[in-house]
């Protein structure tokens, strides 16, 4: 069974200075699946992504991606395996233009010497044009990314994520700072991406989660509290207590 899984997080725990941020967490994802993760602030959602992407090493437990044990790899190796990440706080390269940001993200050349010798190919041109169109940032292609609004940076980072062509996308609070219309457009975009890739998305915005229409995992104090459709988990008394008793 486990062979069918794309991602398998098993019995993972992490302690920061005696504080258990992740507590015996298990979570798995089938290829092609999209999963929404919700949970109050401090539930450990971002830390879970840190563990999958190699930023934080778990104290115990395993993280498998296909047949690889991610706990033994560093961030660049995990990224090259095909796991992309969008950060909670949008992080783009502010001094570079939007298209330069996208160019650096494109799957392919990674060794410093190869980067030094690289010239922008026709294919790369097309990829960037396509990403600019998807993220609706054509008008800003040559503007420095640092001058953009929060929402635009979010979109640029999603564009960079797509540029990497990962098999699994980890998306941390993508609609923070977006208007309702943008939020819905982002949900559409993620559903579109999910046609070819697997996605884990963390979000507080319930309208957004509803628009995704996927299985929801509720995280609380570092472990899974409930899992199911949005209607199922919102009817779960434990979930209601966690959210109301905050």
């Amino acid at each position, binding site marked *: 069974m486990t062979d069918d899984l794309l991602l398998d997080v098993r019995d993972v725990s992490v302690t920061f200075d005696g504080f258990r941020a992740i507590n015996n967490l298990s979570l798995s994802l089938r290829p092609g699946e999209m999963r929404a993760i919700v949970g109050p602030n401090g539930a450990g959602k971002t830390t879970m992504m840190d563990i999958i992407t190699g*930023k934080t090493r778990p104290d115990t437990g395993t993280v498998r991606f296909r047949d690889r044990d991610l706990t033994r790899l560093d961030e*660049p190796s995990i990224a090259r395996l095909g796991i992309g990440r969008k950060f909670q706080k949008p992080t783009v390269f*502010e001094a*570079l233009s939007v298209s330069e940001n996208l160019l*650096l993200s494109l799957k392919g050349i990674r060794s410093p*010497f190869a980067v030094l010798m690289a010239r922008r190919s026709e294919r790369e041109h097309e990829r960037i044009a396509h990403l600019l169109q998807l993220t609706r940032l054509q008008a800003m292609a040559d503007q*420095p990314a*640092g001058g953009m609004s*929060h929402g635009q940076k979010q979109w640029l980072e999603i564009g960079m994520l797509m540029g990497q062509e990962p098999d699994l996308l980890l998306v941390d609070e993508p609609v923070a700072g977006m*208007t309702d219309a943008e939020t819905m457009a982002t949900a559409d975009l993620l559903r579109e991406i999910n046609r070819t890739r697997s996605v884990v998305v963390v979000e507080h915005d319930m309208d957004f989660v509803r628009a995704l229409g996927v299985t929801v995992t509720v995280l609380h104090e570092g472990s899974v509290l409930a899992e199911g459709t949005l209607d199922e988990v919102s009817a779960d008394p434990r979930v209601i207590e966690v959210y109301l008793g905050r």
Partner: protein
Amino acid sequence: MNPFSTHGTRSFRGVIWMAAAVVVAAGGLAMASLLPEGNPLHASAFVVSLAGKYLAYAMLALSVDLVWGFAGILTLGHAAFFALGGYAMGMYLMREIGARGVYGNASLPDFMIFLSWKSLPWYWWGSDHFAWAAFLVLAVPGVLAGVFGWLAFRSRVSGVYLSIITQALTYALMLAFFQNGLGFGGNNGLTDFKDILGADLHAPMTRAVLLVVTGVLLAASLLAARFVVGSRFGNLLVAVRDAENRTRFLGYRPDQVKLLVWVFSAMIAGLGGALYVTQVGIINPGEFAPANSIESVIWVAVGGRGTLCGAVLGAILVNLGKTLFTAWLPEFWLYGLGLLFICTTLFLPQGIMGLWRHVRKPAPEEVTPEVSDTQGDET
């Protein structure tokens, strides 16, 4: 806020002009030095060697700007690479003296005889060949930078800690080179050179040629640096400078990125040191002094960090200032330099190049984000 974030598309067209200006100026001065003494345009040997020294310092400044301006590594030890290049060239110049030294020994430099050494230590082998010396000028700083950078960047040492260990590196080398037993002439260093490739180092023609060679190599270094920072690798460097962690999640290894530019930069510094020695005529452990590295950072800050041209301008202007100032009020130069640095940081954060941009474009490059048509107003 990061002062670079408003530059956006970074073009370095000015660098080509700067490279051309350096070659023309060096060539012009070299020709002027060959005019007869009475000619009003005649440039004295003093002026020629001073100009050569400034251009060599400009190479050091350029190397500092590459790592500080583009990779965010505030090096406080780059003079070490400069001095090592200088020593590599100095070894060759020592061997060129041959039997014309005080002790008249064709195979051993004077200071070794003074130490009663009987034969050349192994690391002096081959130093009588110019080509080998030229190789060492690049290889020694390159290899040291490679080892140092590999250790430092791999263990993710950065910021002020990295600055401190670069300072420690140059300080340790200074102490080592002061030792007579190391075989580099102790505190006297290497000096009393006679000729280079058979040409008399004191002849006006040789000095003129050396100045031109320095100008050409500085211009070549500028263009090479422009190629590096103007390439996709330059974008990656800036990405690493501003958001190192983010680059890891894209699959890049920032330690390798920094290592590549660090080694390249050390080689440019070494080349500058070698050219310096041919024209100044001496290299001693004082060149490793921590203050030298700090001064080179100030040149870059004054000229404008992250612009390449600014490094060259800053090195030349500050050193010109130093020459004039020390002739006038020698004790106060360090205070003057300190004041200059403080004023630059406070009033000209982008140095002379920033001022230049400001003059050319009175409305500064304010970024007005155009909201694309499909998007509404945001936060």
